[in-house]
């Protein structure tokens, strides 16, 4: 009995020793942990491939890629930063960046980037990552938005060209809704992620702004009320899908993919969904309809180096590799975003594809959500207000004033 115990101990020790030694080899190089959120099922494998290539290219560091779904990203990152287990490099929505930077979680990278690397970016997109004189990350993805139009439904309703103004949009949408058979003219979003973004299209094209010239909330300006009433008019005249306040971005996209929606405002990723799920839908993409001003919603996502990273220089070197022309073209082909590098804007893949060209053309008039620390909470208050205005529970003026008051209170914090 005793000898068996000793043997067991010896075997255990051997296994432990061998395990230790393999671990020892693996950790001889410094590890750089990179965390990414998934745009599609291909995002993770793409970046894992990049890391493999990079690891084979040099001996200094070992890059490890972790990927998880977008909805879990924010909470996971916050939890890891609090626990001191944050990765070296992390992907995030640009609108979270301001708060993270203010709380000292991110490393300023302007000093670590070479001049040529800095100059390779489209300035609007890189400038968006700057605050208080520091650059807090790189724009990993950018998108502009356009209006997707179902050509078959347009033909059936006898409309020949894409509407250019909101009035034309209303007229077209009413004709399409009149086709019946649970077909609706235009989608209006009133629920979940990015509800506020759907409203910005109307806000900006009516000449409004999120933050007014006096530095206060522009949610309740005359333009903002007109922008909201624009959507309420669509809803009241039966030109939209029913149940606006329960329709998320995905719901609208699914309706469009099912051929039940004449128009929807969305971004380049919808091209991907349509080519995979609904290859038979004939559609084109037009500019966002206007009232007074031409505009679209631009959004970027950011990839940042965390302040706790012990390998900031090496991290930037990896990012420089990830942002070279070859890798970015590949990324563009996989995910279909607007290019963020100057060199890519002339790339045939983007300019020749009519479904991508509109987004490139609209980029110059793109506006962005403000980078203020409590943006998520302001957007939430706006969302609640919009929901009450769309459902008719409150007048648009009262609902927006409530949201604006909340925003001013948060701006003052």
């Amino acid at each position, binding site marked *: 009995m005793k000898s068996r115990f000793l043997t067991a101990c010896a075997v255990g020790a051997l296994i432990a020793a061998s395990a230790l030694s393999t671990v020892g080899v693996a950790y001889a190089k410094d590890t750089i942990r990179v965390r990414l959120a998934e745009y599609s099922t291909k995002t993770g494998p793409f970046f894992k491939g990049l890391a493999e290539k990079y690891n084979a290219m040099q001996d200094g560091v070992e890059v490890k890629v972790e990927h998880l779904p977008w909805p879990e990203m*924010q909470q996971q990152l*916050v939890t890891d930063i609090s626990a001191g287990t944050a990765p070296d490099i992390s992907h995030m929505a640009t609108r979270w960046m301001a708060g993270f930077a203010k709380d000292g*979680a991110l490393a300023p990278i302007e000093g670590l980037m070479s001049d040529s690397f800095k100059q390779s970016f489209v300035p609007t997109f890189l400038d968006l990552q700057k605050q208080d004189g520091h650059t807090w990350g790189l724009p990993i993805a950018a998108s502009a938005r356009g209006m997707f139009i179902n050509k078959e439904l347009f033909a059936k309703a006898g409309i020949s060209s894409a509407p250019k103004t909101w009035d034309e949009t209303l007229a077209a949408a009413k004709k399409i809704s009149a086709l019946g058979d649970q077909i609706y003219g235009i989608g209006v979003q009133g629920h979940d992620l990015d509800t506020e973004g759907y409203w910005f299209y109307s806000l900006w094209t009516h000449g409004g702004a999120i933050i007014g010239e006096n530095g206060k909330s522009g949610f309740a300006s005359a333009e903002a009320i007109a922008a909201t009433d624009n959507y309420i008019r669509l809803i009241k005249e039966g030109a939209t899908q029913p*149940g606006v306040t329960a329709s998320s971005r995905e719901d609208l996209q699914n309706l469009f993919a099912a051929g039940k929606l004449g128009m929807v405002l969305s971004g380049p990723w919808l091209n991907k969904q349509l080519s995979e799920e609904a290859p038979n839908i004939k559609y084109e993409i037009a500019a966002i309809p206007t009232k007074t001003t031409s505009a679209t919603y631009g959004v970027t996502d950011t990839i940042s180096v965390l302040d706790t990273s012990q390998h900031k220089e090496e991290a930037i070197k990896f990012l420089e590799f990830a942002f070279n022309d070859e890798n970015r073209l590949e990324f563009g082909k996989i995910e279909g975003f607007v290019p963020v590098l100057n060199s890519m804007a002339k790339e045939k893949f983007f300019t020749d594809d009519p479904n991508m060209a509109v987004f490139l053309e609209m980029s110059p008039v793109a506006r962005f959500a403000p980078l203020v620390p409590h943006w998520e909470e302001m957007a*939430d208050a706006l969302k609640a207000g919009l929901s009450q205005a769309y*459902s008719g529970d409150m007048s648009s003026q009262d609902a927006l004033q409530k949201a604006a008051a909340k925003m001013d209170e948060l701006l003052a914090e």
Partner: protein
Amino acid sequence: MKRIGKFSPYLLIAPSFFLSVFVIGYPIFDVVRMSLFKVNRFGKLQKFNGFGNFTKAFSDDVFLQTIGQTAIWTVSVVGGTVLLSIPIAMILNEDFYGRSVARTIILLPWAVSLAMTAVVWTWVVNGDFGTLNMTLNSLGLMDGNYVWLANADAAFTIVILIGILVSIPFTVTIFLGGLTSIPDTLYEAAMTDGASGWKRFRYITMPLLKPFTQIAVVLNVIYVFNSFPLIWIMTNGGPANQTDILITYVYKQAFRFGKLDKAAAGSVVMFAMLVIFTILYFYITRDKHPAAKKAKDADDAVLEDLNVSKA
């Protein structure tokens, strides 16, 4: 020697006792501490803030509105569950052909994770593709599609009904246990005395189920009050925060808006509400008639003397 004997049991349980106190107590302590400080989004305490976080929470309209909604949610789900579970348990306690199948069906929702239930029901009530609209349309009860979750009242009613559905299995189990413990002899005696079915229910079943009802109510209140996945997945608190309950409010504050201090204050308020409720509830439902209690004890003693097993 005798003194050591007196203390040794306490000495022996001391390690596990302190471990439990630590494991249970530390998180509570931590939340209470956070609720009294300004905290950044990564949980780092910054400066003492007294009751600042609480005043901030109570001056937030959404928080106050959420308290009301939490009360409606908890009372409706727990009330509905208990009212439905007693008859279900009584039926399942009868001996009938296929009882074990019926029991399995009733307990089945328990085996499915709440998150899955919520996702499935979200699809059922979906306005465009949902099976609820389809069924109502084909039965001729409705014409066209209704988007159930777009309207706050409809959405809240639906989550409450699903809340009841998922709470039933656990509650039925409690009541089944209770019914099994009532000796058949009591019913036989009552029947010999000519007591009607209602009277047997009112004067035998109800009083003897009382301790089980108490437990069912208290445990359900605690679970339902803190229940997160259903509402989070089905409505996310919307439209316009009108289906938010305290737990979803606190989650949004903490993980969406990075306000851990306000979220901690909200959590402390929730904890206090539950503690107060539990104490009050047990106080109100305590045995008010010492005589009745004495009589019941005497009954028990008689049963014991006769060597009649209660189970």
